[in-house]
């Protein structure tokens, strides 16, 4: 019986001691996409003209270090997507795509940045279908946390 008590003690001790580990603080925060600034573009319900080049502008923030971002413009003629924003925009009737605009690109952010003013030039070809589109911003931080922003826009 004494042995048993001893064994139990050892077992418990072994368990407790194995619990202690060096725990450096790990990052569990998501990066932030900020499009509330005065010159942020596009924002929810923005319109863009065909045959012209516009400048994407947004502010990115992270508690530790930003990673990279991607931009994606695809059609929403079938109303398949909705946006992450609270207010909704007026949409055209559902239609079939003929030559929809498709844009996918990724962008690097210089190392070590906690805050970054992102700008990118995007050209809308003159011959694409006008209508409702979706503008996706995907931002990661160095650890791989990702934040999405989906905006409804119109190409005229």
């Amino acid at each position, binding site marked *: *019986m004494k042995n*048993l*008590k001893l*064994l*139990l*003690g050892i*077992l*418990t001790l*072994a*368990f*407790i001691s*194995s*619990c202690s*580990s060096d*725990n*450096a603080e*790990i990052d*569990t925060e998501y990066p932030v996409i900020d499009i509330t600034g005065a010159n942020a573009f596009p924002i929810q319900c923005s319109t863009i003209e065909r045959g012209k080049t516009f400048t994407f502008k947004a502010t990115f923030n992270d508690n530790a270090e930003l*990673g*990279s*971002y*991607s*931009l*994606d413009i*695809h*059609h929403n003629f079938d*109303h*398949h*997507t*909705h*946006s*992450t924003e609270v207010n909704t925009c007026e949409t055209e009737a559902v239609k*079939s*795509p003929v030559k*929809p605009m*498709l844009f*996918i*690109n*990724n962008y690097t952010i210089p190392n070590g940045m906690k805050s970054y003013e992102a700008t990118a030039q995007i050209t809308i070809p003159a011959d694409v279908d006008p209508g409702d589109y979706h503008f*996706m911003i*995907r931002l*990661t*931080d*160095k*650890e*791989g*946390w*990702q*934040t*999405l*922003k*989906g905006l409804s826009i119109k190409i005229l």
Partner: protein
Amino acid sequence: MKNALSMYWKYCFLLIGLLVSIEVFSQNQSSEKKSEIKELEEVLISNNTVQKRKKEESLNVETVNNSFIQRNLGGSLMQSLQKLPGVKTISIGSGGSKPLIRGLSFNQVIVVENGLKHEGQQWGADHGLEIDQYAVNRVEIIKGPSSFIYGSDAVGGAINIKPLPLPSQSTFGGSVDLTGKSNNAQFGSSINLFGRNKNWFFDSRVTTMDYGDYRVPTDVVHVYSYAVPLYKNHLRNTAGKELDFHLSTGYSGEKLKSAFYFSNVHTKSGFFANAHGLEPRNVDLELHDKSSRDILMPYQQVNHLKVSNTTSFQLGNHAFETQIGFQNNFRREYSHYVNHGYMPAIYPEDMYAPQDLERQYDKDVWSFSAKDEFRLNRHQITVGTNIAGQENAIGGWSFLIPAFTQFNAGLFAYDKIELNEKWFLHGAIRYDYGKIKMKSYYDWFQSPVSENNQTQMEYLQRSQDLTKTFDSFTWSAGINYNPGNLSLKANLGSSFRMPIAKELASNGVNYHYFRFEKGNPNLDAERSYQLDLGIEWNQQNWSFQLTPFVNYFPNFIYLNPTSTHDIYYGAGNQVFEYEQSEVFRYGAEFQTRYYFLKSLSAEIGAEYLYSEQKSGSKKGYTLPFSPPPSVLFGLNYEPQISFLKDPYFSVDYRFTAQQNNIVPPEKKTAESHVFNVAFGSKVKTGNQDISINIQIQNLFNTRYLNHTSFYRLIELPEAGRNIIVSMKIPFLISR
């Protein structure tokens, strides 16, 4: 904060440990010995066999039988076993789940049914185990590495579904199982028919299930940042149905036994419609919310066929067993065509795959195994071999993993030494060889590729012809000491797992999580070293069990979220890439039961797990799907009522702690308090007893999140209140 939490748990366990040691020695009162003899169809298996097995096995083994499953009936087999500490599930809706043993799942836990290793598409989070829980009589759960028995993949543990006991001689009978569930308006039935003359027997079963969308206690969910309204709390499009057939037949004589097993499990189930594709989607609400029972897109259809023969015979001192098996897993995922990357906006008419067939996996597995068990003085020796070959074809318009073929072979020897009644020693060695051959795949559409300022349209290559071979030597050593009421065990062992095609060569979009997954052809075979301890006390009115473990992986295979995006196939989605890192894990399960009276008992079951990556890009982080600590308190009342047999009434309260130990893209999960009530009885009718079991799960319709649910990432709460009524009506046609 995190440290504070782990300190809290440390002290919890310390306290429990102390309490236990005090209690053990202050216990002296006696009550009538509970002789639990369970009726398993026509065969009587006493609980002592299970106890004996536990005492002679150095790994931590839990055994449950079909009456446990009936009392705790969940939507699928693993959900019914969740009450066991250390056993959790990754649930996919209300009708599917996969095992999660001490935080490990997917290809790190193997499932064996009738001696055959179950091979489905277990690498996928959306894959549920294709097992009919009505056809399960006895399940053994090994919590720990068991590669030396089962070969590659059993690094985390094994679920061994034992063959049905044979009907006794000259019987012909059967049973009908009926189940109804309120939450998803499920109706299930299973009909069993068995018979045997002197030596020839058969046992057959047909199971059907049909269920609607399940309900959650919320009317809006946030899929990432997108708000999705729910209609009448129904989780849109999670209805499903199932149809299963089983037949086992053969000969059982004194020296020779040969049984054929045939089974076919077919399921069709919907996925939550708003969270499938390239991004959270708007769906046609009118169409989807018209009926809660229809299965619209996206949905999956899975068929699993198994045919095998197990033959055992006695030759002198030797007991031989051979097994030949074939299985086919055919899984299809249907979804509306969504062009992504540079796929054409309109689906081409001359495509090789139907427009709605997003993915198709077709797996054929042939296997053979043989073993010889014999005694040499105090040694009980088992030597054996397993050989398996598989062929995997892919289909559908989208790509995630390539087609591949695989070959595995293993040789093992296991020695159990019975020093005396109290001491047992165990030693095992195993050698494995594996070869995997992946096939090349090109996109069916062109994408623009820029080189030297020139843009060209090209068919991109998603996967290359690639052959990888692996071999491994694993071992295990253990000891049992059983002085009286106490049993102690220790086991030290190594395990291994060959990387799978998904880890080596995936290169596509995971439509459930909106991410781009990329394989790594340079992965090594995963190794694991684990020390398992077990301490158990069994007394007439009191029992407890503590099973701590420490585990180390020098090269755990892990899907790492990177900070980059894929701009072709991935349509700008985040890239997740397979990597290997050192992982250190430890944990323990604790179970105790105390009888206040012969009819009244209380039980506690607790589990704790800690995992940490010690190297690599996620150094310091935990592993995905880490179950938070939890404690289950249960109260059972089993009164003597003259016209009833074995009536019971039980209340369970499960406290699950918060999980703040997360890794991208997981979210912290708050603590939860969930109550379940169960009651039932057998009713005497002639020779056969009808049993009725009633359960109310999530009694207070509590809204909570389960950290290890497939839908956790999209903030979906667990099912609301669910009343489950099940009934088993056995019948005997002749005897």
